[in-house]
């Protein structure tokens, strides 16, 4: 496989991985206040995403993929709110261990990495175009 084609494939894998990361961030943010279904139950648990590199046999390059979507084991936030349907007998409600600030920071980083991948992909396409344009000058 041509190195430039391989390059496109690698950048594509990078875009895919970063968008999975954004998806997990979106899930966490959407569920930032999701309590458990019954009184005293555990709420939504924050999800974490890890990346891993894998060797692609066709190109010999290290592609990136989402290794595993794990859960954050940090403690839940507990608030006193006896009126909440999910409150236990002492009136405490467990809220998810999601910190919006952390999620926003993660989102910005995913965005930056996505843009970098996109930039490399654009440039690879430009290099291919330059090669093809050699034909233009040969009438």
């Amino acid at each position, binding site marked *: 496989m*041509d*190195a*430039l084609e*391989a*390059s*496109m494939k*690698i*950048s594509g*894998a*990078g875009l895919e*991985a*970063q968008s999975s*990361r954004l998806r997990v961030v979106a899930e966490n943010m959407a569920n930032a206040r999701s309590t458990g279904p019954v009184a005293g139950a555990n709420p939504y648990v924050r999800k974490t995403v*890890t*990346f*891993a*590199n894998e060797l692609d046999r066709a*190109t*010999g*390059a*290290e*592609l*990136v993929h989402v290794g595993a979507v794990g859960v954050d084991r940090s403690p839940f936030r507990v608030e006193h709110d006896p009126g909440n349907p999910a409150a236990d007998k002492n009136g405490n409600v467990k809220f998810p261990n999601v910190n919006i600030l952390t999620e926003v920071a993660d989102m910005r*980083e995913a965005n*930056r*990495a996505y843009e*970098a*991948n996109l*930039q*490399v*992909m654009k*440039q*690879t396409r*430009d*290099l291919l175009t*330059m*090669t093809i*344009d*050699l034909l233009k*000058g*040969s009438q």
Partner: protein
Amino acid sequence: MVEPVFLFDLVEKQRSWLSARQSAVSQNVANANTPGYKAVDVTSFSKVMDRSALELAGTNGLHIQTAAFDPRPSSPKDGANWETSLSGNSVSLEQEMMKAGEIRGAFSLGTNIMKSFHGMWMATLKG
């Protein structure tokens, strides 16, 4: 004019080397957030050219072929990468973007030289 410097062959080799380097850059950028990933680069063009000077011609299918011109990404020496994060990842996006800029410039130079020599060639043919 073109023959004594093997110009087209040289430009083709440079293009192949730059493509390999571009693929190394995209690999680094894609793995910019992978824990433990070590950034790679391709050995410099002059070094690859020096190594590919001796090429044995294979006259039989059973002959071991020496790799003619095969730039491959490999981990560079320590200190070549700008930073290593706590997760053991040694990719710096800024450094990769700079490399990408270099590649673009060199690629554009190569193709333009080829174009201009081709133009001269055509001019001599057409008269």
